[in-house]
């Protein structure tokens, strides 16, 4: 099986139906175990008590929000350079998912911030750059929806996403430099991770679950995108009438 066959819209549409169903169900089961692990099995924090447990939603969502943007920009780049149709659809369908992840990260962060910092929102570096990431996503979605010619729209929005990807580190470090108050990253310190392994493992597991969820939703959305683009083509009508 070669790449060009998978990249074919018809092949993708007709062969991934069961896959997305399976992944959706799989996510549900994995998510259940992850929540159990994070909320009951993992020990409570000696400083923050039980409120830290929202981390098991907050941190994977925040990671995914950046990862999805990167994925969107890279697939957009591939679609611009090699003109792969499926990549165009994948790239643009990433945008709403990433925006939702960003929103989840922001809302759970606010919920965590109230008992810990005493306020829902502070203008702190990482919160602010997450908010700006949300604005970047909204820009991409708004630009896409403003075009009436969707193929043209995808080309332009991929370009915006690529420029945004170049800009994200600049924005991030400038905002970080502007003000920092956030709890420092406690996972990626290699010498001495400041998080105990019994808390870290559920977190990494939840990251995996979020990834599976992302793939499941992405496949579903890509199917929808293919349907919207190809609904007048012959094979789609044949396939749906069967």
């Amino acid at each position: 099986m070669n790449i060009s066959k998978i990249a074919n819209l018809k092949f993708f549409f007709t062969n991934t139906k069961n896959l997305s169903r399976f992944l959706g169900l799989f996510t549900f089961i994995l998510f259940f175990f992850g929540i159990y692990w994070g909320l009951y099995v993992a020990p409570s924090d000696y400083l923050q008590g039980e409120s830290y447990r929202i981390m098991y939603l907050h941190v994977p969502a925040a990671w995914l929000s950046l990862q999805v943007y990167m994925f969107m920009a890279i697939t957009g780049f591939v679609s611009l350079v090699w003109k792969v149709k499926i990549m165009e659809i994948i790239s643009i369908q990433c945008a709403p998912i990433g925006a939702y992840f960003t929103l989840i990260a922001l809302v759970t962060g606010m919920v965590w911030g109230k008992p810990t910092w005493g306020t829902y929102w502070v203008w702190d570096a990482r919160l602010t750059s997450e908010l700006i990431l949300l604005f970047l996503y909204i820009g991409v979605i708004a630009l896409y929806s403003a075009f009436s010619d969707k193929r043209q729209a995808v080309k332009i929005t991929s370009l915006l996403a690529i420029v945004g990807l170049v800009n994200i580190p600049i924005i991030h470090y400038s905002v970080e430099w502007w003000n920092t108050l956030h709890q420092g990253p406690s996972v990626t310190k290699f010498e001495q991770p400041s998080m105990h392994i019994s808390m870290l493992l559920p977190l990494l597991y939840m990251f995996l679950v979020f990834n599976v969820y992302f793939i499941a939703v992405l496949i579903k959305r890509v199917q929808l995108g293919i349907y919207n683009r190809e609904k007048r083509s012959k094979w789609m009508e044949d396939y749906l009438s069967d």
Partner: protein
Amino acid sequence: MLRKIIYKEFKSYFRNLNSIFLPLIFFFLIISIFPLLIGPDKNLLNKIIPGIVWITVIFTTLLSSSNFFKDEYNNGFIETYLTSETSLELILFLKIILCWIFTCLPIIFFIPIVSIFFDIPLKNSFVILFTLIIGSPILVSIGIFGSSLTLGIPKNNVLVPVITLPFYIPILIFSASAIESVSSGLPYEMQLYILTALLCFVLPIMPYLLKYTLTLSINN
């Protein structure tokens, strides 16, 4: 060819003098509305006037650059540019510079007057001036990039600001911090250097990026 294009640009800016003076009037209007809104307290005004100046510059550049290519797109000039023998990158670079000269330079010339109005010390007003001279070309070129992205859309009033404002943030952060440092007596050179680095990064790339976007917009 190049000389003719520059001549045409100059002529079109000078024929419509409104396009030079109205941004300036707009700038003054917004600046003078702020004291009416927050009260004439001098200490407060002194603290926030750099931010006000920058916000007003953002508005002005957005207004002047959001429909930058519209007329040329509708008249078919862009196709002519794309097929001409002169390098399009050079033309676009000149257009960015000219847009900056006619929209931001008048504002920069009027910063001393604003400093008199708001009683800003000389040193602070020089730093505001420097940040504007270095930062506003970046703002203009990003705004023009935003307008080139929205060429195929018939009505795009608020879209360009929504797309481009997140990209403005690093420039705004460093300029505001330079001004704040100088008003509290701290060293401010580092922020100016970073702004200059951003300018050196953005300005040479922008014509190529614009050319690519224009070819994408034309080939639909």
